[in-house]
């Protein structure tokens, strides 16, 4: 059957293509070290995944949003089932050797189902949120979207994979916002998590708690909701130190190092310091492609995955950083535009959810290389080495092209 002619939103795949090419070049450079290792040749594998991703994206862009909407339930259920399965047969790899993030069959690692789960959650959330005629106005009204995120989130946190868990939270709150949930309600929904983070400073938590009480006074939710909110906030404020003890020592260290990188320079802080040294020594023009000494001499940790931005900074300098972040900025603004142009709430929510996922990835990953964010081991879209993530990113590109094709008005123009 011949498909109808779909006007393609060319700037989007073009940006994704440039970013991928840039990324593969950086993966190649990351492999150029003084002591050759397996990293030397992985850019080829990345290239294969990229081509696979482009093909899949093309295939998806030839389907329809209706198909996506119909399939979202199955994709979501399938993703949850895979995540559940992982808890039994999952394997660790690389920096996350002690976790169960990888699906492997016959000893061959196929990929990280959590990458697929992000898209599945976006699709499922979009379906549920778009089905509601009015945006939820009470906390209890959020139970359905919350449950949709909670199930895979718990399964991923059980791997454990803190970084991906953070991305899920980003997707969740961004999509609630896009569906029209009011600001105060979003803050209230997020309040237990905020309490958890602020619990480490009792004074700060106290101030936050008074702020929360003021907000409750203003919003005046039902008394049951109010008491649940106060209860959960107090609980997380008090429970946080207990949870702290539950964290793995490496997670504790990473959080502590985020607060004070020089605390333990030879252990966890070492990663951050060496990344900063690599980036900082790059200067304005960088040391030249493949010539970063920090990278060549293996001072930069995980230079081909989580810390690939350190290679960009060291070798291409601030100009390279402007270029890469500029490309990401254009891509994200483009996808926001796609979301805003979409004629169906479902498609719009999907587009915005994918935008939120990418934005969270970029902020957390890039932020961590310069000490702006804790080290959570979350990859940079199109750049970091990783087959399933490259594939997931291009699936998202395919979906976005599809959404854009069915949107209102013309797709031209790079910014809104």
């Amino acid at each position: 059957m011949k498909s109808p002619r779909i006007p393609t939103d060319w700037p989007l795949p073009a940006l994704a293509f440039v970013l991928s090419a840039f990324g593969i070049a950086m993966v190649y450079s990351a492999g150029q070290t003084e002591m050759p290792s397996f990293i030397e040749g992985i850019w080829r594998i990345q290239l294969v995944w990229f081509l696979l991703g482009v093909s899949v994206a093309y295939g998806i862009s030839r389907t329809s949003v209706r198909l996506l909407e119909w399939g979202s339930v199955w994709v979501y259920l399938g993703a949850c089932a895979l995540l559940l399965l992982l808890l039994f047969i999952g394997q660790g790899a690389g920096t996350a050797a002690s976790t169960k993030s990888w699906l492997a069959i016959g000893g061959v690692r196929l990929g990280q189902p959590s990458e697929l789960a992000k898209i599945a959650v976006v699709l499922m959330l979009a379906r549920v949120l778009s089905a509601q005629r009015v945006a939820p106005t009470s906390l209890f009204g959020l139970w359905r979207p919350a449950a949709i995120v909670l199930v895979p989130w718990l399964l991923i946190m059980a791997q454990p994979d803190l970084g991906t868990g953070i991305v899920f939270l980003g997707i969740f709150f961004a999509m609630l916002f896009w569906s029209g949930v009011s600001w105060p309600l979003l803050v209230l929904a997020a309040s237990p998590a905020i309490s958890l983070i602020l619990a480490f400073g009792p004074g700060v938590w106290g101030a936050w708690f008074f702020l929360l009480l003021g907000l409750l006074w203003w919003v005046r939710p039902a008394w049951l909701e109010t008491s649940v909110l106060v209860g959960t906030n107090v609980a997380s404020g008090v429970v946080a130190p207990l949870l702290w003890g539950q964290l793995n020592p490496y997670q504790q260290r990473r959080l502590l190092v985020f607060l004070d990188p020089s605390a333990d320079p030879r252990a966890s802080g070492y990663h951050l310091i060496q990344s900063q040294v690599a980036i900082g020594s790059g200067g304005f023009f960088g040391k030249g492609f493949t010539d970063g000494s920090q990278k060549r001499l293996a001072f930069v940790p995980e230079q081909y995955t989580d810390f690939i931005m350190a290679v960009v900074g060291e070798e291409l300098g601030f100009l390279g950083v402007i270029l890469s972040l500029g490309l990401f900025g254009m891509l994200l603004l483009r996808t926001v535009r796609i979301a805003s142009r979409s004629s169906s709430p479902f498609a719009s929510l999907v587009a915005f959810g994918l935008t939120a996922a990418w934005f969270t990835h970029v902020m957390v990953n890039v932020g961590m290389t310069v000490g702006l964010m804790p080290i959570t081991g979350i990859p940079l879209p199109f750049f970091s080495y990783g087959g399933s993530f490259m594939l997931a990113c291009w699936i998202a590109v395919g979906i976005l092209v599809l959404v854009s094709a069915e949107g209102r008005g013309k797709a031209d123009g790079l910014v809104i």
Partner: protein
Amino acid sequence: MSFHPNAVQERARVASALILAGFVLLLGTFFRTMVLQNARYVLASEENRLREIPLPAPRGIIYDRNSQVIAENLPGYSISLLARNEDTLRTTMDRIGAVVPVTPEQIGSAVRRYRRDRSRPTVLFGDASFELVSLLEERRVEFPGLIIQSAPKRHYPDGPAVSALVGYTGEISDAELSQEPFADYKAGQQVGKDGVERQYESRLRGREGVRFVEVDARGRVVRENAREDIPPDGPAPLYTNIDLDLQRYVAEIFGDSLIGAVVAMEPRSGEVLALHSAPTFDPNRFVGGIPQSYWDELQRDPRRPLYNKAIKGTYPPGSIFKLATAIAAMENGLVDIDDQMPVPCTGGYQYGNRYFRCWDKKGHGNVTLAEAIEHSCDVYFYQLGLKIGLQRLIAGGIRLGARARSGIDLPSEVRSLYPTDPPKKYYDARFGPRGWSNAVTLNLSIGQGENSQTVVNMARLYTALATDGFAARPEIVRGQAERTRLFSLSDAQLKGIQDALTNVVGRGTAAGSRLQGIAVAGKTGTAQNAQDAFADHAWFVGYAPAGEAKIVVAVMLEFGLHGSRAARIATKIMEKYLKARVVAMPVVEGE
């Protein structure tokens, strides 16, 4: 309706603003890190990348007066390790131990050096043999961070013959590292430990060079010569006054059987021509760490080879100190060279209720001062000492430097022992107010009693006797000659004493040591040995040629029994020096 286009547009604007804000935050942080703090991180990255490998500097070459080498540097190897931490160091040492024998002491000292200075490569083997180097070089890949480099190794061609004067070098000790003069020294470096090597450390020490190597995060050396080397700098050679031929000759005479010391000087300039202490040790074996067995052997040897008998040992001077008594008497105008004493020598002298023996039981009869010196008559000097009186006797001895150091340019010279002035206070403190009598005067007047002199100090005293009453400070390295007036006698008085000293060798106590064609002057001494009453120490201090002295030689033989034995050695040294000079005069000195 939440998805009205206007509402969506509004949210899109908010979302875009948030995204832009996020990117501005990121870019701002990158700008701060990469542009504003660039210098700091460039430095940190260079520090990461480059390791400074010190290039050991050669020590200054030490020459004798005729440009013969006393100390030089041979090519050697040192093996060190760039260790990230103590565990790496220990495991690497263990793994090296599987290839070559490594003692626990070597591991211990490597760890100690590492703790002292973690930034420098830790020296594992300071003086590695060629076998060790080739074994490790073959397996270099197995030992990342291992640095094998050439390191100049100190060598003394004449080894044991020069150890007393040149000393030796060794690795700087922890104790030394914490001292102020070694403030800019690093653990593992070589430093002069004794002798000229220590005394002139600041002139002999070279300036270390630096080699820059590139290392990766595991400390593996990935590139040599990452930056241009700063070559090490050897200092200018050190020229000494030593006559190496004479020094060798002295060492040869002593061999391994005699115990004692020799100092030979040029009397006017104070140039030390030879300085020897026997038995000796091989300083070459100290380089790169003394083998424990050798160290134990030296420590156990009752003849104390490590003890420099020329500058650290004090011995009762005996008769060689009678000249001090003679000078004190003449300076006070109490006696002339031809004067006799009231009581002739009959082999002893009755003083109070004690009988003081002369060394010659047959007695010397009536002797003049000149004859008393010639035959070393104790009875004459007992009476002379009493005539001078204890106070003037001691004051005279002190003026002659009997309580002083010679000032030789060697470390830890010991001060000679002699009573202080006023003597009453000294003896009261020493023996109690009623514990002594004027009889101490008799002992002091013949160089016994509370008198213990270093060999070098006696050599200095005789430079004054050999010349004009001025003593020259002994100098191993050419410096500024310093002469100090010890006594002032008239020419006739001095001539009288010098003639008497010449007669000592001509026909007196050292008559057996006469030399063909060279008039030798000097004085024998046989000093009671506190350790062994039947094995006296033998002294001879003298000079030659008698008319115009070119060399002063002080010889002390532990358990030498009689001064005439020391005299034979001394005159042989003089002969060697003086006859060699006649033949080899035109040799250009130094420079």
